[in-house]
């Protein structure tokens, strides 16, 4: 305990230098600015801004990149709430109820709860990192390929549970997402898989392309298809700061989200990305009005946003302690550290305690800054809403095109996203949910990698997933969640049959 406080004290003394506070502020501001742009998530933002940090010292560079990461994530949530275009996978959940709240004129409340939830989550996650960095290293080491695989299966099952509507359809979307992630060169043999001979598919489908296609272009197509039903809504952004009553109602969701996010983010898998989905599923399951989820429930914004931020932060633990990037953003951070001459791994804490604890402490400062700079700036983001849709959507098309092209300077990515937009429209028409598809896609590649590794280790025996207690436990949790989700569904369909008789 005293050790933890000493560590945080060291970190704060590093992070509170004028220079590092400035880099933190700059990172948060730039990250938010770019993150607000529809379809530009943290991954794109960080890869774009990576060269900017070259001239900085390692601590300043990492602090600024971390700031960009939170900023972009927060900006993405703002866009998700105001415009319903999630810049990345984790904002998908925020878009569901956050945008419904905006439609009801509660955008301010949604944004305020997101900011406050994120700050509480960030504060807690900073303490978690400081206290558990060392012990968590040992827990993470217990995870082999089989446990990774089972963990991801559990996460995907939870995603099925959270999807409203048909379980069969949600399950199909998850499987379709994993299947789409298989497209392209095989990771081991380099053999082309399901590319139909198209050169643009050889490298697989970029997640950003899939997301911008289905969520960006698909949404535009959807809106163009029902123009006569478009209603001009009069709404207020309203108060940003929730009342004490509202805060009390949502505090449970914030704390549960913070806990879930902190735990999931620590696991050396893509745990952080599951956090908002898991939080949404949890809030929906324990809510006394689950039927209202998806129609603008504050808890469905506060919980996932807190989980998102906590998970984003604790996902630094596997990177900083094991040198293992748990997601695409952390993979970019590895690149940034290597450029600065730091090899990520267990030796970082010992060799550069200033950098390690300075970065951890800057996360808390960054979260504070996000609340301070974002809430007053919300008026600027709101201006986006005043633009009529007939001008807003061509602007979104332009930003998406530029963003898609800049991923790899490849026009084929732009075209692919356009075609995927039609897929998104078809999914909407057939009432398939796109969120499980996106999650399946994000986890797909890792899932296959771990499946193969586990089966190589076990000489092809599938029982390896059941003989390891950790793996078995994770699978059981998934199975229980699925059973719980299936039961009311069975009851409901029985009731319907009953009515028909």
């Amino acid at each position, binding site marked *: 305990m005293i050790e933890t406080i000493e560590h945080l004290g060291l970190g704060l003394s590093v992070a509170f230098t004028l220079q590092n506070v400035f880099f933190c502020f700059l990172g948060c501001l730039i990250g938010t600015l770019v993150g607000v742009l529809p379809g530009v998530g943290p991954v794109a933002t960080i890869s774009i801004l990576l*060269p900017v940090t070259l001239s900085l010292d390692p601590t300043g560079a990492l602090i600024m990149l971390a700031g960009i990461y939170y900023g972009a994530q927060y900006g993405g949530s703002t866009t998700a709430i105001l415009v319903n275009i999630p810049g990345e996978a984790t904002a998908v959940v925020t878009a569901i109820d956050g945008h419904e709240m905006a439609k009801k004129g509660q955008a301010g409340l949604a944004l305020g709860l997101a900011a406050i939830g994120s700050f509480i989550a960030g504060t807690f996650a900073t303490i978690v990192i400081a206290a558990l960095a060392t012990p968590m290293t040992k827990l993470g080491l217990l995870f082999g390929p089989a446990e990774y695989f089972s963990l991801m299966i559990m996460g995907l099952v939870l995603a099925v549970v959270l999807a409203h509507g048909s379980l069969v359809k949600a399950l199909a979307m998850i499987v379709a997402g994993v299947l789409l992630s298989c497209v392209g060169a095989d990771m081991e043999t380099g053999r082309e898989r399901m590319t139909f001979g198209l050169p643009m598919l050889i490298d697989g489908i970029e997640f950003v392309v899939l997301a911008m296609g289905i969520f960006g272009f698909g949404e535009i197509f959807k809106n163009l298809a029902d123009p006569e039903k478009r209603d001009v809504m009069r709404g207020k952004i309203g108060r940003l700061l929730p009342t004490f009553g509202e805060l009390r109602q949502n505090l449970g969701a914030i704390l549960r989200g913070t806990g879930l996010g902190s735990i999931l983010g620590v696991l050396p898998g893509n745990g952080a990305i599951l956090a908002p989905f898991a939080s949404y599923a949890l809030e929906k399951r324990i809510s006394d009005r689950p039927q209202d989820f998806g129609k603008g429930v504050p808890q469905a914004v506060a919980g996932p946003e807190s989980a998102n931020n906590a998970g984003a932060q604790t996902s630094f633990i596997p990177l900083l302690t094991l040198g293992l990037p748990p997601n695409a953003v952390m993979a970019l951070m590895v690149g940034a550290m290597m450029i600065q001459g730091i090899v990520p791994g267990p030796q970082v804490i010992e060799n550069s305690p200033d950098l390690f604890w300075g970065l951890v402490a800057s996360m808390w400062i960054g979260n504070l800054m996000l609340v301070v700079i974002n809430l007053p700036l919300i008026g600027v983001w709101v201006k986006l809403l005043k633009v009529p849709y007939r001008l807003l959507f061509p602007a979104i098309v332009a930003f998406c*095109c530029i963003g898609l092209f800049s991923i790899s300077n490849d026009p084929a990515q732009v075209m692919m996203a356009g075609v995927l937009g039609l897929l998104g429209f078809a999914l909407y028409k057939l009432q398939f949910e796109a969120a499980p598809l996106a999650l399946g896609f994000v986890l797909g590649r890792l899932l296959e990698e771990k499946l193969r590794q586990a089966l190589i280790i076990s000489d092809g025996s599938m029982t390896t997933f059941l003989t390891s207690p950790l793996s078995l436990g994770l699978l059981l949790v998934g199975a229980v969640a699925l059973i719980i989700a299936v039961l009311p569904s069975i009851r409901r369909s029985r009731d319907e049959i009953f009515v028909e008789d």
Partner: protein
Amino acid sequence: MSHEVPEEVITVDVPGHPPSSPVPPSDPWLGRERLAGLSLVVFGLLALWAGSDLPFMTEGGVGSGLLPRALAIIITLLGVVQIVVTWKEVPESTGTWPLRDMLPVLIGVFLFAFTIRGYDFGAFSVPVLGMSVATPLAIIFAGAAAKDVRFGELLIFAAVLTVICIGLFRFALGLSLPVAPWLIGY
């Protein structure tokens, strides 16, 4: 410091998506739920066919075809389940599919792709026209898809937004996007 934003009333132009009208489809197979199941079956079989050349197992362990094929089979089966489960439901129409209204957006997106870095069609090739041409093309064509389009306004908007985009992405963010190589050399 205050977090209060003035209580301004803003007009938000949010498209509404009421549930599709309960109009029965012309054919029960065109009902939403059955069509969804059918699409899954078609998608699964397509993936099965696309991955049919991949080895299921290799000497070293799992072949590159194991997961895709297993997933394709699962999707096909889920499609069948979807059709069976919803068989007795009253079919609901999926509503209109106004693909013609969406076409301008797609054209805009593809024109952007063809002009931003140039494109070789074989018979003829498009030179590198850069952001100065690709961006307004995308904006104007996409904007033409709106039912309430005002072309004068759209043209001015496209010009202003193009300047902003070039300033933001090329100069502020330093992305190596071509701006107007035919005019200013980069």
